C-alpha cells in the first residue's frame, strides 16, 4: 500500500514537472530581481554608504529583524500564490488527462485500486506541492542571504551583523512550513472538488469547476437574497483560523518590541491549536472526503469506451 503510494506520487512528478519547475522558476526570478536591485543600487555610492552606515549604527536589531522578516514574507507570498494556481491546474488535469489520452486503460490494467490512485493525487495536491513550495522558499532565502551578504561586505558593511546576526531563519522557515501546509489542508475541500470534476467531466474541466462556484451564489442571491454559499465557500480563503493577529507593519512599531524582540516573530502569531480545533477545518476535511469518495466512485464505475 505504502510502496504503491510512493510509486504513484513519483509518477505524478514525472507527469507534472511543474510541481518542481514552478518553485525553481520563482526562486530564480526572485534571486535575479534581488541581484538586479543590488547592481542598480551600487550606482548610488554615496547614498549607499550612508544607508549601510545607518543600518549598522542607527537602526537597532528590531528594525533589521523586521525588515528581513518583511522581505521573507513577501517572497513566501509569491510562492503561495503560484502554488495555488499550480494546484488548481494540477487537480483539474490529473484525472481528466488520463481519460482524454485513454492511458487510464493502461493504468487500470495494473494491480492498483482506484482509491489508491485518487488518494495519491490528493496527497500530491495537499502535501507534496506545498512541501515543494516550502523547499523553494527556503532555497530562495538562503540564496538571497548569501548574495546580499557578499554584496554588503563588498560595500564595506558588516554582513555578519547586518544580515546573519538579525535574521530569524528558524522562526521564518517554521512559520512558512506551517502556513503552507495548513493552507493545503484548509483548501482541501476545493482540491477534492477539482479532483472530482476532473474525474467526472466529459469536457472543459476548468469551466465545469468554476461555473458552480459563480452560479450558485448568484442564483442564491437572486432568488433567496441570502449569501450562505458565498460566506461558507468563497470566503474560505480569507478565513483560515491560523493567525491570531498578523500585521507585518506593526513589526516596525517600536511599541511592539518594548518587552524584547519576541513580538517580531511570525511563529509567535500562529495559533496551530486554534487551527486544529476549528470546526470549519474539520468540516472542510469532511467535504473533502465526500468529493474524494465521489471521484473514486466515478473512476471505478464509469465505462470509458
Amino acid at each position: 500500500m505504502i510502496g504503491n503510494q510512493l510509486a504513484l506520487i513519483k509518477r505524478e512528478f514525472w507527469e507534472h514537472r511543474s510541481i518542481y519547475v514552478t518553485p525553481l522558476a520563482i526562486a530564480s526570478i526572485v534571486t535575479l530581481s534581488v541581484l538586479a536591485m543590488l547592481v542598480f543600487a551600487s550606482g548610488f555610492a554615496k547614498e549607499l554608504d550612508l544607508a549601510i552606515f545607518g543600518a549598522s549604527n542607527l537602526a537597532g536589531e528590531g528594525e533589521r529583524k523586521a525588515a528581513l522578516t518583511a522581505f521573507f514574507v513577501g517572497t513566501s507570498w509569491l510562492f503561495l500564490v503560484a502554488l495555488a494556481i499550480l494546484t488548481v491546474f494540477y487537480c483539474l488535469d490529473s484525472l481528466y488527462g488520463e481519460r482524454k489520452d485513454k492511458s487510464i486503460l493502461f493504468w487500470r490494467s495494473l494491480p492498483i485500486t482506484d482509491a489508491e490512485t485518487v488518494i495519491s493525487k490528493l496527497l500530491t495536491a495537499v502535501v507534496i506541492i506545498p512541501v515543494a513550495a516550502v523547499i523553494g522558499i527556503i532555497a530562495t532565502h538562503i540564496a538571497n542571504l548569501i548574495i546580499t551578504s557578499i554584496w554588503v561586505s563588498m560595500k564595506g558593511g558588516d554582513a555578519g551583523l547586518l544580515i546573519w546576526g538579525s535574521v530569524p531563519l528558524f522562526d521564518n522557515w517554521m512559520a512558512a512550513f506551517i502556513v503552507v501546509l495548513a493552507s493545503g489542508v484548509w483548501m482541501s475541500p476545493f482540491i477534492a472538488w477539482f479532483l472530482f470534476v476532473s474525474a467526472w467531466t466529459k469536457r472543459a474541466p476548468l469551466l465545469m469547476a468554476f461555473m458552480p462556484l459563480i452560479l450558485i451564489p448568484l442564483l442564491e442571491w437572486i432568488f433567496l437574497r441570502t449569501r450562505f454559499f458565498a460566506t461558507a465557500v468563497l470566503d474560505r480563503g480569507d478565513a483560515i483560523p491560523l493567525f491570531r493577529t498578523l500585521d507585518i507593519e506593526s513589526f516596525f512599531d517600536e511599541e511592539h518590541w518594548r518587552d524584547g524582540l519576541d513580538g517580531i516573530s511570525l511563529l509567535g502569531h500562529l495559533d496551530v491549536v486554534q487551527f486544529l480545533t476549528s470546526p470549519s477545518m474539520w468540516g472542510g476535511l469532511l467535504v473533502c472526503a465526500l468529493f474524494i469518495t465521489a471521484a473514486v466512485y466515478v473512476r471505478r464505475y464509469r465505462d470509458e469506451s
Partner: protein
Amino acid sequence: MTSVVNARGVSKHFGTVRAVDDVSFEIEQGKILGLIGPNGAGKTTLLKAVLGLTDCDGELSVLGLDPFRQRKELLKNICFIADVAVLPRWIKVTQLLEFVESVHPNFSRKRAEGFLSQTTVRSDAKVRELSKGMVVQLHLSIIMAIDAKLLVLDEPTLGLDIIFRKEFYSNLLNDYFDEKRTILITTHQVEEIENLLTDIMFINDGKILLDSPMDAIADSYVELTTSGEDAIKARGLGPIAEHEMFGKSVLLFEGVSRENLDGLGELRTPSVADLFVAKVKGARK
C-alpha cells in the same frame, strides 16, 4: 484441467440494450481462445467484465475471484492490452519500467529489458516519440515480462502493418505462451490468428453462437463446392449457408458427415471467417 474463466448466465445491460445476454462458457488453462464477433456484438463488454472493469449480472469467476470486487488481487495474475494507443504519451520507457516494477509483484524488469533489446525502442525515449508499432512492441515487452496466468488481448494489432503483426504473434507464441498460461484474444483479422488458436468462440448480439475447440471444427463443419445436379442433391441435406463463387455453389454443413457428401463435389474444412459469416447470417434469419 483447471478452469481459468467460468461464466454462468452472465448478462450486462445498458439501459434496454443487452450488450451481453445470458452467456455461459468456460476457458481452461493452457488454451488460446479467439473471441470473434462483429462490432457491437458484446465482445469488449464481455472482456471488460472478465477484467473487472465493469460490473455484470450472473456468476462470473476469473482465477477463482470475482473480477469486479477483487480486481486488485486479480490484476496481479492477469494482464491486458486493451488498444494500441493506451500507453501514456508523456512517460519515458525507463520510467514506465520502473513504475510497473514498483507496483507489480509479478513483473520482471530484466525480462522486459531483454525483450526490448531485441527491438529498436530506445530506453531513454518518450512514448510520444515512438511509432505506433514500437509502442505495441514496448507494451508487449512489458506484458510478456509479467508472470500472469491469463492474458487478454483486445484488438492488439489494430493499425499495425503486416510485419509488426506477424512479429507480434510469433513473439507471443515463442517467448510467452506455455501450458500454464491462458490467452483470450479478440481481433477482426481472424485469418491471421486462426492457426494459433486452440479454441474459438463466436459472439453476436450478446449471445454465443459457437464455442468449440479448433480441432473439433473439422469434425462438425464441412464446406462443399459443387454445381448442377449435385448441388440440388446437396441442398437436400440441409446446409446452414450457401454462396456463389466462380459460378459454383459453396455450401456449408454442420453435423453432416463427410461420407454423406462424398462424391457430390470438392470437400474441405471451412475457414473461420466463412464459418463466422455463415453463423452470423444464420442467427439473423
